[in-house]
């Protein structure tokens, strides 16, 4: 048994069989497997060998057809190597004696042969070392490829261990059977963390070298609450975590029943519970958990999966939005235009990184500085708008001028589309994110010019309190319950309600049950959060009356410190969901 400490980025406890994703470059780390697991490694070798020769047979036949029998024969030789009983025997002996993983055993044996060829005096024979390398790579690719393929068609529940999860890898995951993540690198805002939270499965990141210590098939406990991963746990650890797992499952099963029920208070006041998503496929899961719309579809992923010089094409935008619309099935879908700039990737791509990126050229500012790029996104958005209930949301608006400029660009794009005879929805609802104090304070002015507000509490807290929550030394000061922040939230909701436009909160505050009563009492009509948070928030809404919520809000707004606020909210919330606190 070994316990590794990392950063818990998505809560929950899971016990599962590990799948380890290897890096593409086929560097095979030396790993020892459990003696019980040797049989499995042997089976993997045999599977890789037979799959490898099947592939080669196809390749040979194709080559023979295209380039003649003589050229095709080279693959006969490769097939012959894969079927060579003495090679299999050596690989199996390597597993047996040294408890090597399948990959490592193959690598060791094939390199031993390569060495022998290298030392031959005859150049023709020496040259065969290339064939040996080729065969080795084919087998390793088989093994690693096997796992990749398995990831999209799993037959049993697994936990996935990787150096870092790539967006392309998470996109290919079999969501039904992947029950947890653990990665070598990453932080709270890493891709792995976001995906894990969206999937509602535990994840621990920043574990250092976990992929070197765990091999496929090991039993692993991922404890996302405490940020701990236990490799091959002992009986006691296992029992303790099984109990935690069961408790959590019972609680989740209760919440699941809620999905079908409306988000309505005891006295009949109805609110919308929407989902925040990053990938279109997340919509299915969110709807299953009770989402009646998507309040925030982040479009940054399209950009982050690109290289530094590559552009995201209009069609790539269009395809992603069309898929999201299709999966939304007529439910509202709020698409936020590009919100990049302050992130690490963008800064790294720039020749001259900004000194203060969070106060720099980010988000809508960046879009207005790169009109062609902005237009491509808007054009795709408008084209897609005729197939569903799409709404456009501009992020990081801080002045009315910015909003008007963005609108002008949008109008330009509409005209262009009209000229091109392409259909779009002219009255597409337009909203802004309120995440800069300046915009919050000017909310009643903004309310005259937009169809909806969405309060981005994460940034609003950061900019109001001047705290970077990713900076460990000041992260403790980051608190949505700060009265200054709460007053801004209250005023924005009030301004929106007075102007009769929809107001939602799409920051993490919306999905935190601690703030549900307060936001409800302040008159919020849409809560947009990660799918897995919906049932718990709904449970509170369905348990309270508006009168009680308003009372809680009034009381909260009378406090002068975040400590009082949180203490009081905890007390009030516990009345409805004692399990959560």
């Amino acid at each position: 048994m070994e316990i590794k400490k990392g950063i818990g980025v998505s809560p929950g406890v899971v016990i599962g069989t590990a799948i380890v994703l290897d890096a593409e470059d086929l560097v095979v780390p030396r790993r020892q497997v459990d003696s019980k697991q040797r049989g499995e490694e042997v089976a993997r070798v045999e599977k890789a060998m037979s799959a490898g020769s099947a592939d080669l047979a196809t390749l040979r036949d194709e080559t023979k057809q295209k380039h003649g029998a003589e050229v095709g024969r080279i693959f006969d030789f490769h097939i012959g190597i894969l079927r060579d009983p003495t090679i299999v025997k050596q690989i199996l002996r390597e597993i047996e004696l040294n408890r090597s993983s399948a990959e490592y055993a193959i690598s060791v044996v094939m390199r031993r042969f390569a060495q022998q060829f290298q030392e031959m005096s005859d150049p023709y024979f020496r040259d065969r070392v290339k064939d040996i390398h080729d065969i080795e790579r084919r087998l390793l690719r088989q093994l690693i490829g096997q796992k990749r393929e398995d990831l999209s068609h799993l037959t049993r529940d697994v936990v996935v261990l990787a150096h870092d999860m790539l967006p392309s890898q998470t996109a290919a995951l079999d969501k039904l059977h992947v029950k947890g993540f653990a990665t070598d690198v990453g932080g709270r805002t890493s891709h792995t963390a976001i995906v894990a939270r969206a999937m509602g499965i535990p994840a621990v990141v920043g574990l250092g070298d976990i992929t070197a210590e765990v091999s496929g098939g090991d039993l692993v406990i991922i404890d996302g609450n405490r940020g701990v991963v236990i490799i091959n746990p002992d009986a006691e650890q296992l029992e303790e975590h099984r109990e935690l797992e069961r408790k959590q499952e019972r609680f989740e099963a209760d919440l699941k029943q809620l999905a079908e029920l409306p988000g309505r208070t005891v006295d009949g006041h109805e609110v919308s519970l929407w989902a925040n998503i990053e990938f279109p496929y997340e919509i299915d899961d969110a709807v299953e958990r009770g989402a009646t719309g998507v309040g925030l579809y982040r479009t940054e992923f399209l950009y982050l999966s690109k290289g530094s010089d590559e552009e995201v094409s209009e069609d790539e935008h269009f395809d992603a939005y069309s898929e999201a619309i299709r999966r939304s099935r007529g439910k509202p879908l709020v698409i936020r235009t590009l919100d990049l700039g302050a992130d690490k990737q963008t800064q790294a791509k720039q020749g001259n990184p900004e000194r203060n990126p969070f106060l720099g050229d980010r988000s809508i500012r960046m879009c207005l500085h790169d009109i062609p790029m902005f237009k491509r996104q808007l054009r795709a958005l408008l084209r897609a708008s005729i197939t569903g209930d799409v709404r456009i949301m501009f992020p990081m608006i801080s002045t009315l001028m910015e909003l008007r400029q963005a609108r002008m660009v949008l109008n330009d794009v509409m005209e262009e589309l009209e000229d091109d005879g392409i259909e779009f929805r002219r009255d597409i609802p337009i909203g802004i994110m309120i995440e800069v104090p300046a915009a919050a304070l000017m909310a009643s002015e903004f309310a005259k010019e937009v169809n909806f507000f969405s309060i981005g509490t994460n940034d609003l807290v950061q900019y109001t309190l001047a705290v970077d929550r990713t900076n460990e030394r000041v992260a403790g000061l980051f608190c949505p319950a700060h009265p200054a922040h709460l007053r801004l939230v209250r005023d924005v909701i009030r301004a929106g309600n007075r102007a009769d436009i929809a107001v939602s909160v799409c920051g993490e505050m919306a999905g935190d049950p601690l703030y549900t009563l307060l936001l409800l009492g302040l008159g919020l009509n849409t809560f947009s959060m990660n799918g897995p948070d919906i049932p718990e928030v709904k449970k509170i809404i369905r348990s309270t009356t508006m009168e009680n919520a308003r009372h809680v809000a009034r009381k909260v707004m009378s406090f002068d410190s975040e400590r009082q606020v949180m203490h009081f909210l905890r007390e009030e919330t516990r009345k409805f969901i004692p399990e959560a606190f």
Partner: protein
Amino acid sequence: MLMPTTSKDIVVSNKLGLHARPAMQFVDVANQFKSDIKVLKFGEEPGEADGKSVMQMIILAATEGTPMRIEADGEDADQAVAKLAELFQSKFGEED
């Protein structure tokens, strides 16, 4: 039961020697027989290979002119040796 052992000495006569394709051919033929097949290489860098392992055969790196011996051990040893020796004599179908 004592199995008959048959052997035959031959010389590699094709130009490229016992390279990938001839080695494959040899192994394919060897695999048609039940007997164990052993191939010995004489000369400066002597060696020994399992006649049913293409890797071992090619690692012998037997070039043109290398003296070798084919040994078969089993019920069909005679036929095996005859057939395998024939391959060498036909220069594995290689044209000069």
